[in-house]
């Protein structure tokens, strides 16, 4: 069985995104489980800076050699930053999904989303239920 890294200090969605909050600013990416499932990432379709996203709705697309996967916003708010590095180096998502492979930053403007997100233990359970 494969090994999946699930940092304790992050929050998660059932669609395999993670969120790291710093005040109102939430860095968002996909989890280690997700990047392993996808394989070699070749393209990330990012939203425009300034656009609005809604929790649970698609904000972008991530593509691997074989697969196309929607990206779901873990929190609602405004996209204030996108990871421009991913244009030239989409493989950062495979190499460092919780660090340099972050995808966007969302400003939640004061809303606290943590009640509607999974903690690490709950996400681990969710992954176990789905993996072989």
């Amino acid at each position, binding site marked *: 069985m494969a090994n999946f890294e699930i940092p304790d200090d992050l929050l998660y969605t059932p669609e395999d995104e993670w969120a790291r909050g710093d005040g109102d600013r939430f860095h968002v990416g996909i989890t280690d489980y997700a990047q392993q499932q996808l*394989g*070699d990432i*070749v*393209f990330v*379709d990012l939203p425009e800076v300034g656009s609005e996203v809604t929790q649970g709705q698609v904000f972008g*697309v991530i*593509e691997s*050699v*074989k697969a*196309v996967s929607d990206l779901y916003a873990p929190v609602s708010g405004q996209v204030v930053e996108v990871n421009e590095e991913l*244009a030239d180096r989409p493989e950062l998502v495979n190499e460092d999904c919780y660090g340099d492979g972050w995808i966007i930053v969302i400003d939640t403007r004061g809303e606290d989303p943590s009640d509607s997100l999974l903690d690490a233990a709950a996400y681990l359970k969710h992954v176990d239920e789905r993996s*072989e």
Partner: protein
Amino acid sequence: MSAGKRTPLYEAHRRLGGRLVEFAGFDLPVQYTSIVEEHRAVRERAGLFDVSHMGQIRLSGPAAIGAAERLLSRPMADLRCGRVRYALLCNEAGGVVDDVTAYRVAEDAILLCVNASNIEKDYRWIVRHAPAGAEVRNESDETALLALQGPASPEILAPLAGEGVAGLRRYAFARLPVGGRPALVSRTGYTGADGFELYLAAGDAPAVWEALLEAGRPLGCLPAGLGARDTLRLEAALPLYGHELDDTTSPLEAGLDRFVALDRDFIGAAAIARRRAAGHERALAGFELLERGVARAEHLVAVGGRTVGRVTSGAPSPTLGRSIGLAYLPPALATPGTRLEVLVRGRALAAHVVETPFVRGVAPKSARTG
């Protein structure tokens, strides 16, 4: 859990951590480590593929060569023993039943290697058109097939198979022992690279697989899965049945003119000639995206906002670092330099037609058309 058919190497794939997917009814690895890693291994060193899902159909007997001549788009009578030829099985409407490689294994016998998805269909088709005096045998279940592909292939195989390897020319084959097991070894492949395909008795496959991996390891050979097989063949612009070829498509539309000899009688020849005389409405072209993104099968192709065709295969090319693909276009547009748009998720991605193959110079200089 998948419940498809298994090749003799199923356990080996599990042990290697292969990610199994269902393909043509078989459980096979799409990758072991990474599609890009495995692809690069083949381009730079070597990769080993289990392609035992493919089918083998043997025609033998006094009428076998005649039957093959009738069924295939190229002559078979002049195919010498020990040589291989790529050809099409066509239907009466001039469409493609399958694309196959034909091995002259004896004066009165031809072994066809066919696509896994078409084994039953091809077998029934051949039986239907084979006269008495041509025995048709489906040997798929008893035959395993490995493909060792990449520039290091001869160096890896030679210690295991002996002197016969070095002199084996492209599109030739020989019966050689590999790791002590009897094999039919051909200098062929589906990657655009130098390499070999090894036909084995199913029971011998695991031992030969292990022997090749062990021999290849110090030279950087990796086990490679279906994902890399597809990106490699796409870089070489080789057609895949069900994508570039199907039973309504003339081989000439797919650019396979070299493999269709219309100056002879075979099933489909008249229709292919008629359709050519009438003018084809589409031609297969290779394209590259000019901006970031990935074109894939079924994406529409447009020129100036007007839909003109459809992508049949598309993927990011690990060698080129760009997205490439094949598409059917109106013949007038199928010329290198034509600017296109590929419609991906509602956006028009800029592209242009390019010469194929996309990646050149990967086959040995002695390669002739097989």
